[in-house]
C-alpha cells in the first residue's frame, strides 16, 4: 500500500491527507499530522474522500450523442467533432461559452480560460458557484480593493474574539468549526449572528439573533456601537480608512442593544480578532452589503490588515479561490485582474499570442439561457445554481453541450459530447484553499478506461484552436500559470509535496473604504412571514458526495422520505396556521405561490420559514431570484 499525499477535494478549508491504493485500487485515506492545515484531523468528508472515485458512475470513454444516445468514440474523433462544431458556430456568429469549476484544478481552470479567451475570443466564462460567492467577493472588494488581506485557520484558532455570521459552520466547514472550537476552549469570545440555534451558536459567549436576510442590521448595530462608544481604532481609521464621516452619518439612528455594546467591546479589546462570513446569494445590492459592513467593522476596529486578525470568507467548494485566481469570471483575467487592466492584458496577449476580447462576458446563469455552444468543465450547474431545475431546462436547449467530467452527472447525461476526465485521485495539479494556500494533488491510481487528466483534454482542445500547448505535465501548465499570474510563481518553484503558499498577508499600505449595510434585504407587511432558502450549497448533489456510499446516506434518505421537499417552521407558527407537521401549507409571495409539506423545528423563531437548498426547486415560484422573501402562509 503506497500512501500518496494529496489535498482534500471537498470544501475550501484545504485539508491534506494520504490516499491509500492497493493494486491500482483506492483503499482508503490516512490523515497527516505534518499537513499545515489539517494537522492530523479530517472531517467525515475527508475520511470518505476515496469513495466517489471508487464507487461513482465513472466516465471511461469519450461519448458522442447520436440519435439521442451517447455512443463511445475515439478521443481523436470526439475532440475533432467538438472543435469542428464550435468553429462552425463561431463562424455563424453564434455565442459560445465555457464554464470552469470550483472542483477542477487551477491548471484545468487556467486552460479552460485560455480556450475561451484566446481560442473562442469570448469572455463568456464563469463557474456556477461564482453566482453564489460573487456578491460576497464583490462586497469585500468594495471595502478592501482588489486583493483583500487574508488570514489562515490557525489565525482563527489563536483569536481572542471571533465574529461568525452563522450558516451552519459545523456542517459546511468542519475544519474551520474545529478552529473556532479550539479558540473557544482557550477562552476566546465567540459572537454568532444566526437565525437558528446551530451547534456553533450554542458554544457562543454571545449568540446574537437575527432575522434572516437582515443580518446587516445587526452588523450595523455593532458598527454603531463601536462609533457611539468611541471604540474605533484611531490609527486604522486615520491611516487606512476612507469615508469614516459618511459612515458615522449613515449609522445615525441604528439600534444598539446592550449585547451589541458588549460584542463591540470584545472585538475592539482583542489583539487578534477574526470575522467569518459565508457567501450570501440573492438578487440586488443588499445581498452583498453584509460582507461590506463586516469588512468595515473589521477595518474600523483595526483588525483588517493586522497580522493574525482579519476576515475569512467561508467558500463552499475546494477551488473557488483558484477558479477566481485563474480568471474564470466574465470580467476578470487571471490573477483576478479587471478586464481593462492594461498590464495584465499585455502579459496574457504576449503569452497566448492572441488578442483578447475586451467586453465583459455573460455570467453562468445568463450563459445557459443564451449561448449556442457550451463547454462545461467538471461542473453541474443545475445542482449548484440557485435556479436549479430551471438551469437544467436551459441546459437542455443549448445547441451544442460538451461536458468534461469524471462522473456521469445530470449535466453529463444531457451532453452532446462527453469527455471523460481523471478524478482528483488520478491527476496532478494544484488547488487554492480559502486562505489562499496553493496545494498539490498527486496521482494515486490510473483513471478508469480511456479517461485522461483534464489538463491534457483541454490542451488538446486549445491546440485545435491554434494555441500553443506543448505541455508534458500539469507542472508545465502551472509554470505557464506562474507567467500569467505572478502570484503563483513561487508555487511553481516549490519542492514541498503539499504545495506552497500564496497568501496576501498584512501590509502597511491598505486602504479601506468604509460602508454600512443600510438596507435590509426583506421588509415584512403585517401577518407576513419571512421565507429563507437555507444554505447556499447542496453537498447531496455534489458527485463526490452523491457517489460515496457512506457520505450520501443522509442526503439520499432525506430525498426519499420527502419527494416533495419540505419547509421548516416553528410549532407556534404551525399551530397558528392550523397545519399538522408533515401536512402541506400554501406559501404566497410577490413572485408566486406553491404548496409544500411542513416540518416542525424547535429552534426556529416565530415568523421564520426555512427551505433547505436541496429543496429550493419546490419553492422556485415563491422565491424567484431571491434567497429571502416575505410570504403569506395559509392552510393548503
Amino acid at each position, binding site marked *: 500500500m503506497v500512501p500518496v499525499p494529496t489535498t482534500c477535494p471537498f470544501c475550501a478549508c484545504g485539508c491534506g491527507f494520504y490516499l491509500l491504493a492497493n493494486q491500482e485500487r483506492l483503499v482508503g485515506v490516512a490523515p497527516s499530522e505534518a499537513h499545515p492545515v489539517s494537522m492530523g484531523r479530517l472531517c467525515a468528508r475527508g475520511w470518505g474522500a476515496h469513495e466517489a472515485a471508487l464507487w461513482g458512475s465513472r466516465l471511461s470513454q469519450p461519448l458522442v450523442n447520436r440519435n439521442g444516445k451517447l455512443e463511445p468514440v475515439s478521443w481523436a474523433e470526439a475532440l475533432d467533432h467538438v472543435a469542428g462544431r464550435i468553429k462552425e458556430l463561431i463562424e455563424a456568429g453564434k455565442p459560445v461559452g465555457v464554464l470552469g469549476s470550483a472542483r477542477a484544478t487551477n491548471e484545468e481552470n487556467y486552460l479552460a480560460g485560455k480556450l475561451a479567451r484566446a481560442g473562442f475570443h469570448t469572455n463568456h466564462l464563469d463557474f456556477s458557484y461564482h453566482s453564489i460567492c460573487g456578491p460576497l467577493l464583490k462586497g469585500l472588494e468594495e471595502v478592501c480593493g482588489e486583493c483583500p488581506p487574508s488570514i489562515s485557520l490557525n489565525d482563527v484558532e489563536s483569536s481572542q474574539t471571533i465574529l461568525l455570521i452563522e450558516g451552519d459552520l459545523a456542517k459546511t466547514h468542519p475544519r474551520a*468549526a474545529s478552529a473556532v472550537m479550539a479558540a473557544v476552549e482557550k477562552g476566546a469570545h465567540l459572537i454568532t449572528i444566526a437565525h437558528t440555534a446551530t451547534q456553533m451558536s450554542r458554544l457562543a459567549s454571545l449568540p446574537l439573533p437575527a432575522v434572516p436576510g437582515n443580518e446587516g442590521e445587526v452588523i450595523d448595530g455593532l458598527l454603531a456601537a463601536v462609533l457611539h462608544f468611541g471604540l474605533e481604532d484611531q490609527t486604522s481609521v486615520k491611516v487606512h480608512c476612507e469615508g469614516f464621516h459618511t459612515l458615522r452619518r449613515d449609522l445615525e439612528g441604528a439600534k444598539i442593544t446592550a449585547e451589541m455594546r458588549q460584542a463591540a467591546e470584545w472585538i475592539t479589546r482583542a489583539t487578534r480578532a477574526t470575522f467569518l462570513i459565508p457567501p450570501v446569494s440573492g438578487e440586488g445590492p443588499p445581498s452583498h452589503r453584509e460582507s461590506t459592513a463586516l469588512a468595515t467593522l473589521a477595518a474600523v476596529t483595526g483588525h483588517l490588515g493586522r497580522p493574525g486578525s482579519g476576515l475569512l470568507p467561508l467558500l463552499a467548494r475546494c477551488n473557488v479561490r483558484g477558479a477566481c485566481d485563474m480568471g474564470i469570471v466574465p470580467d476578470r483575467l487571471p490573477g483576478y485582474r479587471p478586464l481593462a487592466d492594461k498590464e495584465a492584458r499585455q502579459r496574457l496577449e504576449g503569452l497566448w499570442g492572441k488578442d483578447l476580447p475586451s467586453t465583459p462576458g455573460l455570467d453562468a446563469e445568463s450563459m445557459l439561457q443564451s449561448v449556442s455552444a457550451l463547454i462545461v468543465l467538471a461542473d453541474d450547474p443545475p445542482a449548484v445554481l440557485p435556479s436549479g431545475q430551471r438551469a437544467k431546462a436551459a441546459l437542455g436547449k443549448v445547441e451544442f453541450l460538451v461536458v468534461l467530467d469524471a462522473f456521469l452527472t445530470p449535466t453529463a447525461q444531457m451532453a452532446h459530447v462527453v469527455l471523460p476526465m481523471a478524478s482528483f485521485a488520478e491527476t496532478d495539479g494544484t488547488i487554492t484553499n480559502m486562505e489562499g494556500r496553493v496545494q498539490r494533488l498527486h496521482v494515486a491510481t490510473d483513471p478508469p478506461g480511456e479517461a485522461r487528466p483534464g489538463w491534457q483534454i483541454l490542451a488538446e482542445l486549445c491546440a485545435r484552436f491554434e494555441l500553443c500547448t506543448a505541455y508534458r505535465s500539469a507542472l508545465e501548465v502551472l509554470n505557464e500559470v506562474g507567467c500569467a499570474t505572478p502570484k503563483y510563481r513561487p508555487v511553481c518553484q516549490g519542492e514541498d509535496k503539499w504545495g506552497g503558499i500564496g497568501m496576501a498577508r498584512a501590509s502597511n499600505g491598505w486602504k479601506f473604504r468604509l460602508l454600512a449595510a443600510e438596507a435590509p434585504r426583506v421588509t415584512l407587511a403585517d401577518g407576513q412571514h419571512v421565507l429563507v432558502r437555507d444554505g447556499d450549497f447542496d453537498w447531496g448533489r455534489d458527485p463526490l458526495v452523491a457517489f460515496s456510499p457512506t457520505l450520501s446516506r443522509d442526503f439520499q434518505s432525506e430525498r*426519499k422520505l420527502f419527494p416533495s421537499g419540505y419547509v421548516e417552521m416553528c410549532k407556534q407558527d404551525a399551530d397558528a396556521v392550523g397545519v399538522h407537521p408533515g401536512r402541506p401549507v400554501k406559501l404566497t409571495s410577490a413572485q408566486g405561490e406553491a404548496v409544500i409539506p411542513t416540518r416542525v423545528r424547535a429552534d426556529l423563531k416565530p415568523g421564520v420559514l426555512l427551505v433547505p437548498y436541496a429543496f429550493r426547486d419546490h419553492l422556485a415560484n415563491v422565491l424567484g431570484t431571491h434567497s429571502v422573501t416575505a410570504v403569506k402562509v395559509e392552510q393548503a
Partner: protein
Amino acid sequence: MVFTIPKEGTTKWLEKLLEAGEVIAPVRGPCGDVIFSALRSPTQVLWDFENPLNPPKQFVLPQTDPLVKIKRNGQRHEVEPIYNDAPRTLFNVRSCDVAGIAFLTQIHEAEPADASYLHRAHNLTLISLACTTPCPAGFCVCTDSGPFLTGGYDLQLTDLGGSFLVEVGSKEGEAALAKAPDLFRQASENAVTQRKELEAAAKAHFGPETCHFGSAMRRISTGRVPDALWEKMADWCLECGGCNFVCPTCYCFSVKDLRQNGTWLRCRTWDSCQYAAFTLEASGHNPRAQRKERMKRRFFHKVSAQYYTRDGAVGCVGCGRCVKTCLGSTHMPAVVAAIRKGKWHE
C-alpha cells in the same frame, strides 16, 4: 525464552524476514509523517519514533475490504470468498497496537467467526517494540496495554542501548527468530533486570492524559450520566468519525458492492457510529438521530461493564490517537473525565 540481538544485527535479520514475506514497519512518509508501510529495504525502518497516527489496523481490517467475488454464470451466481493468506510481519509495532490487534482478533474469532479477518490475522507475525518513553498523548498505563506488554505479541523487543532484548511470546515468534538463529543469544540476567528498570522508568514518565475508567464505568453502566451532560458534550463533537477510524479497537462496518470487469466485489467498509445515518432504518426512522445519543452509545460500547465483562477489556488501548485526531474535543480521556466528574468544560 529471552534473547538479545546486537543492534547491528537487525539489518541482517530484517533481510531474512523480507525474504519470507512482506514486512510492514513504521517508516518516514513522503511528507515527514511516520506511517506504517511495507519495507523495501531494512534501512527504512524507524527505531526511534512517535507512534503513527494511522494505526496498523488497516493491515488486518482495511478501510475498503473485498470479502467475496460474485460472478454470473448463466442463470446462476457464483460466490467466491477472497482470502489473503500471504505471510506478513508487522515490525516495530507499539504495545498499544499489539493490544488493539489482539482485541480485534478476539472479536472476529467469536462465533460466527470472520474468516476474511482471521486469514489475515493468523498469517501476521507481530514483533513489537516496547515503549521506553511513553508518547505525549498516550495513556496505555490506564488500559493495561503498555508501555511494555506481558503477552499478545509474537516477539517483544526492548531497546537496551547497544542491543535489543527479545522476548518470545509464541511459536510464530520462535519461527521469526529461527530465520537468523546466529544473531540471537540467550539474554543475561543483567539484560532482564535492565528491561524491568526501563519499564518502571517508562511508567513514571506518562504525559498529562489519564483515563480513570473505573469510576466512569460505574456511572455509565448504571445510567448515572445525566442526559444534559451528553447534550453538552455532543456540541463539542463535529461528527468526523476520526475517533473510530484511528481507534485500534473500533471495527464497525458497512457493506457495499463494487462492480469491476463484469464481476462484483462485496466490500466491507469502515463506518462510524458517530455518523447520523449509521443506524438509519429503511423506514426513515433513526433510533439514534441525535448526536448525544450516538455519543452515549459509543462510550457505552467502549467503557461499560457490560462490554468489559464480555470482552475482558475496555474498548481502548490508551494510544491517544483520538486525542490527536478529534476535530472537536470529545476524545476518550476528555469524555471519561467528564463522566467521572459529572462536569464538562467547567
